[in-house]
């Protein structure tokens, strides 16, 4: 039932998985009603066996059907209360943030969601981001048919455009087939058993009533076990439907295979979501070893089919082999925002401390604190030595803060902050002291992204920092406390993390969440995290 049959086409696989879903639901419904009926009959039997009257007609069939009907009504209540959750509630349980259209990576994600809307004609699909460096993607549907697709920051970094497109096609297929609603129904049936089990186990009662409640508890325990197995089987079939339907839409089974391989090999993120959301993701964030295994327990209880089985089907449709996938996923990824050339633009030599240093590009020099408007520079390839202020491009960048109107001010220097695009995100930068202002959520993105390569000196400096850093917050930073440029609240000195032991200033107001890094701190953090992650 789990594995795609040999020589099955995409269309046949999809149709077969749909048929299996119908069969599994029918089975689940029968067992559900049957067990409730049995509970009623058992209660009736226990009561009636005390009362032996020949003249009483046999109610057993009536009792059975009434209890089955009662179970049905209970399930309807469960389903209605589950479907009442609206999209905002669901998304806040997964802890998502909206995508930022000014961020280059998020813009590509927004475009891909718009493509999914065009392919499925489901509008609007809300695009959201999980600020985690792990890789995963999910789709949900809330009350009133509101839909959303979400990805982690890590996914945007590790996949190329084709792979990301294939993953989103899979998620869009889930939305098109209403899988969120189907799983809600299956889980509601499961929860009805748990509700009965809980109510039956409460209270101290004696005699016949105690016997009845024991029987009811046993039957509902059996019911919830069987219902769980069937619900998980339904979840796995829906994953296969989404795989084949997604491939039908994006027409690139190899890309989906590569994406699944990358996600399963990598870190899925410590996304702590409530257990019932596991099946909303493309690979369950909770169980990673579980879905690699084959065997009785994963076969019964996993929310997703084993990755190997999914790859088998996809590779057959792609007419490719597993080793192609493994090789393709080893080469450095063609980033979704396009590979930027290493050192873009003009390089400069800088006269510092009696010597010519460099050459470096504009973007490398400015954060370094080497350069003041009066510093002598020589552009690479020319013999002309000028003061930095006189060079058109550098001069402009250095005096960028000069007109401060309408700009946020550097909390140390009180001059205007210039805007800069760094690794695809928009951050603000002080031309005088070299500090960076990051808005809420941006630090996680920069730590995940690997666009910048750092100079040897910066790496050495970062390592030296790490080995000598004191862990005393007050001692380790000499700068005074500052005011948040965005919301004017106070900022507190915090360690970025135990790993880096770099102190940054973070805005106390959690809605604002801005982070200020003094010169070199952002670089140091990135280097230390990158080196730790390998």
């Amino acid at each position, binding site marked *: 039932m789990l594995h795609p049959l040999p020589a099955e086409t995409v269309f046949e696989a999809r149709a077969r998985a749909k048929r299996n879903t119908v069969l599994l639901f029918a089975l689940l419904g029968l067992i559900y009603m049957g067990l409730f009926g049995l509970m009623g009959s058992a209660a009736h039997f226990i009561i009636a066996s005390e009362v032996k009257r020949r003249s009483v007609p046999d109610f057993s069939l009536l009792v059975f059907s009434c209890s089955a009907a009662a179970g049905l009504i209970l399930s309807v209540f469960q389903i209605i209360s589950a479907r009442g959750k609206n999209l905002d509630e669901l998304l806040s349980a997964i802890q998502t943030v909206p995508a930022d259209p000014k961020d280059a990576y998020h*813009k590509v994600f927004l475009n891909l969601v*718009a*493509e999914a809307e065009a392919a499925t004609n489901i509008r609007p699909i809300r695009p959201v981001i999980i600020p985690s460096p792990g890789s995963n993607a999910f789709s949900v549907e809330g009350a009133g048919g509101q839909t959303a697709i979400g990805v982690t920051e890590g996914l945007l970094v590790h996949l190329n455009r084709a792979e990301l497109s294939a993953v989103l096609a899979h998620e869009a297929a889930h939305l098109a087939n209403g899988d969120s609603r189907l799983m809600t129904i299956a889980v509601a049936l499961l929860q009805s058993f748990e509700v009965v089990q809980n109510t039956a186990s409460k209270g101290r009662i004696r005699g016949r009533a105690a016997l009845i409640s024991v029987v009811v508890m046993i039957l509902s325990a059996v019911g919830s076990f069987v219902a769980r197995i069937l619900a998980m089987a339904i979840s796995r079939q829906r994953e296969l439907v989404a795989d084949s339907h997604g491939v039908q839409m994006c027409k690139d089974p190899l890309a989906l295979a590569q994406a699944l391989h990358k996600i399963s090999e990598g870190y899925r993120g410590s996304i702590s979501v409530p257990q019932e959301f596991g099946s909303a993701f493309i690979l369950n964030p909770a169980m990673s070893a579980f879905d690699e295994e084959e065997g009785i327990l994963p076969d019964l209880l996993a929310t997703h089919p084993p990755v190997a089985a999914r790859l088998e089907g996809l590779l057959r449709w792609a007419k490719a082999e597993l080793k192609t996938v493994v090789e393709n996923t080893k080469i450095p990824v063609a980033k979704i925002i396009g590979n930027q050339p290493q050192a873009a633009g003009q390089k400069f030599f800088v006269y510092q401390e009696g010597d010519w240093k460099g050459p470096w590009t504009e973007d490398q020099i400015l954060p370094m604190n080497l350069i003041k408007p009066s510093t002598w520079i020589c552009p690479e390839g020319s013999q002309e030595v000028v003061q930095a202020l006189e060079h058109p491009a550098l001069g402009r960048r250095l005096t960028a803060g000069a007109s401060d109107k309408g700009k946020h001010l550097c909390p140390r220097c009180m001059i205007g902050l210039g805007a800069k695009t760094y690794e695809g995100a928009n951050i603000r930068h002080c031309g005088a002291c070299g500090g960076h202002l990051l808005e809420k959520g941006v630090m996680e993105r920069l730590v995940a992204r690997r666009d910048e390569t750092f100079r040897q000196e910066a790496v050495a400096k970062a390592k030296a920092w790490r080995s000598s850093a004191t862990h005393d917050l007050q001692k380790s930073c000499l700068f005074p406390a500052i005011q948040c440029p965005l919301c004017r609240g106070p900022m507190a000195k915090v360690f970025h993390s135990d790993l880096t032991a770099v102190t940054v200033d973070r805005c106390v107001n959690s809605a604002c969440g801005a982070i200020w890094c003094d010169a070199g701190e952002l670089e140091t953090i990135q280097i230390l995290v990158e080196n730790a992650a390998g």
Partner: protein
Amino acid sequence: MIITAVSVGILALVLVYGVLTYNRLVGYRVECDNGWSQIDVQLKRRHDLIPNLVETVKGVMNFEKETLTKVMEARSKAMGAGSMDRRMKAEGEISGLLGRLMAVWENYPDLKSNQNARALQEELVTTENRIAYSRGHYNDVVSNFNTLVQQFPSNFVASIGKFSARQFFTVPEPERANPQVKF
């Protein structure tokens, strides 16, 4: 007595079926109209992007001046076209010309280092994809509609209600030929 009752019953069933099928046909037809307008939305988006594209690459892509002029001409033709046929032909021309431009994009390193050009390339890629997906969706809904119109016994209801099968979105002949890329 019984015969009248039975025939009235059968008539009622036929009428109910007729009404239900008629409504299904209307629903599918509205979906087809919607699908067509979605393609239109994406094509208009492309019209809006083209002047920006030409401005950005004009100074850099020295060998493609002819292609760029042709793109602007095809765009005006598409925006001003009277009949659907001529419109679709012009849109096909635009697709072919843009395809050629994207194929030679890699030969201009100045474009790779330009942030605006990179963002624009992403916009072009996504627009072409959206057009392709909305055409695919249109064909899917037309397929549903045509099936209901032609199947028995709904074809009777279709002819009474004057529903006729629609055409699929097919690629006009010139676009099918691979664009010649000269270096």
